[in-house]
């Protein structure tokens, strides 16, 4: 039971810590490549001469 719970928690965490790709909470139809950490987003913005667009929200 405990192992199963840990597995679920790890998988839930993994879903939110992936690299850059689609938004983890909704489908933006490929509008942006999304990062899930500020450092990664800032590094990408610097590389591409862009701003960081932060969407601070919750999965519905």
């Amino acid at each position, binding site marked *: 039971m405990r192992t199963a719970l840990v597995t679920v928690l790890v998988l839930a965490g993994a879903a939110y810590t992936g690299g850059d790709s689609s938004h*983890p909470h*909704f489908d933006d139809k490929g509008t*942006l490549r999304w990062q899930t950490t500020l450092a990664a987003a800032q590094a990408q913005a*610097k590389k591409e001469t862009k*701003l960081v*667009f*932060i*969407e*601070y929200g919750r999965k519905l």
Partner: protein
Amino acid sequence: MERVLPTEEIKERLAKLAVGLAADCDRPERGVESLMRANLPNAQMLPFVAFVTHDGKWVGGYSGSKAMYAFLEEIEKAEKTPHLQASRADRKKLAGLIPRAQKAAEKNNWKTVVKAGQTAAGIWGRCPEREQIAALVGEARAWANTQFAEAIKIARTATDLVPARKLLSGVKKHFAKDPEAGEAAAGLKALGKLASILKIEAKGTPRPDLREKYAKPFEDTRWAVIFDKKE
């Protein structure tokens, strides 16, 4: 947000302006939370939305949902930020790269053009000078693509693969450290495999799955087609 982001009016414009950070308010990163607290102190309605620079300067933001045209106004404001523009000193540095790159492009010396692009990438900020350099690098990339297409044509129609190899080696030489160099290296590897196939086929009856087997590592690449039977 889900409905607004993919709309025609927003999609391309936002992608040109920013990269996305999907921040989970239930597991907030300290840096993101600090930015929001400092700049949207009275925010209550999710989502909290912000534009910031790569080094953490606040550009603009709001809390709660916005309809498409209201969100478009936020984008317009962010587009006008001086924080995205190159400084005068950096514009001068970028301008200094242009004459040499232009002359090089006229002579098909793409190595120099690519190098100018790499140097420009290390200088921050948007400006017309950067766009001029980007256009020259675009010409270099277009040239590389014509070389790839020509190499594929040769590989699909001729038995002598040396001219195709020469084309790809040329691209590799000009684009060291850029993705085109990797693409050319993959092409050279594929040509090597194709040469082995041609040798085996010339000796007699090859295995029926010979081409398929050799082509496998190149699936989903532009090089896969050279393993099809000769035209």
